């Protein structure tokens, strides 16, 4: 992992203080013990997720995490494995461990300050929401110099100056966002592997150095953060500023959880410095994509997605197709001429790989007449008029179309030069000049042909 040793070596469960060898096991434990619905036994992914599930499915509220030790029952804290654990509690744990190992507690402060800069996971930086009493059994918040703010501040992170400003506005915004989060997070988790290491997506969304990030957030926040919720899915910005707020979001007194990691509305990330961008990304990326045919397994892990035909994971029938497709793939990359693979197990319903369907079709003489078709042009209107029996054009046309008439004929000739319709008169759309714009066609005029919209032509059959 690229993270600092935030996890404190061995993963431990925040809710019940048990130690585990592996984060995966920890997560399984949490799901089974703390995030399991007591009504239907469904296992959720986080506390808030469980709360929302109970509310939505069973119409029941729960206010404490099942099987949690007193002080650690906050249902609104978004904790998943080792992520989301409040800084304060991490410290307490560390202290505990240190005490156990008879070490001095000097480290704690340093760690704390370091942690703030950590842009991954959790840490809520200090909001320590829990003003909550919890700590029973824990070394009370102690006076850690580093974390003054913690204790008191539901929402008031005095300690984190930079965050400060951002916080208040965030709070209010939280609730609305809440509901959406957990689920989103969950399924983020689903294919953990995908983001796992990244944490970027992690709920608490990478904290970015508070300072820089905050200001931009401000403006965005008040609106109740609707936009900000980037949600795991698309992290275009991730690398960029991302976050900061998340931390704040996390621990907010009430709302909590979700963490929409409001990202500053920057377009930059998309096209960094207009032009330069990470061209580098290309190489590796390309090869990573290739896998689709070959070795489906290796590349992206099978994120349990249920795409039946999902390449990466599903092998089943696909395997055969994959392999067969792989062959042509090889040749294709070099020279698509061969094409359309036909193999024992699959067949491409496409005439030729070299040329597109439209190109092939356009070659037919039938579609090659680029000259103005004699037939169409003028169309005396009358026959043409009624489209779908709208209205007898004839009678209607004259009156309505005053303006229309003149233009009609020109319409017939489209071959690149419109008679009567100087295509390129500098300075303005000439056509508009012609004829009084008909009544804006869209105003429903029920009767009468669509405001004289009836354009002429009906070259083919006019089965209109």
């Amino acid at each position, binding site marked *: 992992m690229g993270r600092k040793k935030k996890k404190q070596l061995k993963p431990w469960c925040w809710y019940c203080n048990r130690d585990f060898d592996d984060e995966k096991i920890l997560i399984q434990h949490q799901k089974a013990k703390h995030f399991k619905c007591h009504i239907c036994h469904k296992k959720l992914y986080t506390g808030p997720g469980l709360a929302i599930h109970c509310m939505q499915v069973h119409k029941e509220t729960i206010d404490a995490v099942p099987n949690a030790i007193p002080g650690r029952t906050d249902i609104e804290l978004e904790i998943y494995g080792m992520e989301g654990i409040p800084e304060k509690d991490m410290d307490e744990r560390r202290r505990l461990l240190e005490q156990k190992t008879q070490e001095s507690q000097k480290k704690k402060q340093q760690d704390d300050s370091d942690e703030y800069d950590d842009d991954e996971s959790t840490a809520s930086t200090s909001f320590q929401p829990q003003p909550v009493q919890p700590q029973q059994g824990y070394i009370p918040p102690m006076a850690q110099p580093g974390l003054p703010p913690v204790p008191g501040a539901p929402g008031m992170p005095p300690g984190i100056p930079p965050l400060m400003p951002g916080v208040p506005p965030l709070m209010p915004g939280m609730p609305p966002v809440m509901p959406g989060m957990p689920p*989103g997070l*969950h399924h983020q988790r689903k294919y953990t592997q*995908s983001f796992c290491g990244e944490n970027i997506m992690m709920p608490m969304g990478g904290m970015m150095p508070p300072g820089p990030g905050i200001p931009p957030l401000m403006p965005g926040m008040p609106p109740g953060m609707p*936009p*900000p919720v980037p*949600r795991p*899915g*698309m992290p*275009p910005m991730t690398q960029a500023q991302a976050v900061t707020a998340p931390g704040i979001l996390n621990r907010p007194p009430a709302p909590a959880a979700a963490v929409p990691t409001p990202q500053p509305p920057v377009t930059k990330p*998309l*096209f960094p410095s207009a032009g330069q*961008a990470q061209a580098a*990304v*290309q190489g*590796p990326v390309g090869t990573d994509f290739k896998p*689709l045919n070959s070795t489906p397994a290796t590349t*992206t*892990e099978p994120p349990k997605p249920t*795409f*039946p035909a*999902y*390449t990466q994971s599903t092998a089943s029938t*696909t395997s055969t*197709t994959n392999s067969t*497709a792989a062959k042509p793939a090889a040749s294709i990359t070099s020279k*698509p001429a061969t094409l359309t693979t036909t193999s024992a197990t*699959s*067949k491409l*319903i*496409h*005439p030729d790989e070299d*040329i*597109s*369907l*439209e*190109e*092939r*079709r*356009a070659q037919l003489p039938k579609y090659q007449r*680029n000259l103005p078709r004699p037939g169409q042009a003028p169309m005396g209107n009358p026959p043409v008029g009624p*489209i*779908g029996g709208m209205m007898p054009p004839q009678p209607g046309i004259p009156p309505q179309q005053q303006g229309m008439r003149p233009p009609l004929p020109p319409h*017939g000739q*489209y*071959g*690149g*030069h419109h008679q009567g*319709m100087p295509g390129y008169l*500098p300075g*303005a*759309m000439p056509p508009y000049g012609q004829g009084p*714009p008909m009544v804006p*066609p*869209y105003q429903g005029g029920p009767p009468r042909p*669509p405001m004289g919209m009836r*354009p002429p*032509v009906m*070259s*083919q059959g006019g*089965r209109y």
Partner: protein
Amino acid sequence: MSLFGTTSGFGTSGTSMFGSTATDNHNPMKDIEVTSSPDDSIGCLSFSPPTLPGNFLIAGSWANDVRCWEVQDNGQTIPKAQQMHTGPVLDVCWSDDGSKVFTASCDKTAKMWDLNSNQAIQIAQHDAPVKTVHWIKAPNYSCVMTGSWDKTLKFWDTRSPSPMMTLQLPERCYCADVVYPMAAVATAERGLIVYQLENQPSEFRRIESPLKHQHRCVAIFKDKQNKPTGFALGSIEGRVAIHYINPPNPAKDNFTFKCHRSNGTNTSAPQDIYAVNGIAFHPVHGTLATVGSDGRFSFWDKDARTKLKTSEQLDQPISACCFNHNGNIFAYASSYDWSKGHEFYNPQKKNYIFLRNAAEELKPRNKK
């Protein structure tokens, strides 16, 4: 079944009931049929932008025409107007204010159709059929982008006969999409280029194709902040690639999935793989729809990586699709796309455009 709950609309189609044929599969999904549909294959569909009240649908066909219908809330479709090119129409798009429609044709030109005056003038010229046309609205400029089989991408100020800018493409342009400030263009020989449109269009990155077969359609998707962040690319091999421009973890974030294939698994019969003819993203939910030569459409949730729905099989390929501005209507065209060559073309066969209520079926799998 109407678009908005009230039952009606079907009556207007008139020609849809063949009466006798019980096995008629032209509309197995029982969707609303648009009246007065074009006489030849429909190559492109586009709904009006939110700036216009109501919904107006534009369709370009191989009959050289571009038709406009008003789609009412009760599902009724009213033909409004039509324009002609001298060659099949390959792409259509609206201006951001809903007053103009741009059309691209095999006659090597693109036109601007002013709907209020019902006049269309040529605004672009290429050396080969124009395959794509898109309207670009930037804070400091507006223009029309046209992609052609002449391997160029041109940008036009509609008032001038010369292009504002011409960019060379590695190969013939096959499909493109624009969501400011990003544009994605896919070409023949599996070329794929992304452009950034701020200040002026410039090539941003050439991407090695995530697909192994000919590119056929592309659609840009946005992130939660409504900024374009990636695109979906479909090929002729029944596969769609979801590709992010700057993902945190490309290997994991980008993926491809198979679609529009017949079930070849059950028996020893080879699986038929069809081309993906169109991809469209739901403007609100961010989920996507794909339509294929197999005559089916499917809805997918790319974040949950799951399929939401697949339709019944129509008796013709589905050649184009699009959503209206608020995502309530999904329009798809049923017409021959030449996937089986000239032999299977039946000029007598009717071409349809169907409208379906898309508000519910495209909700993401996980409530976001």
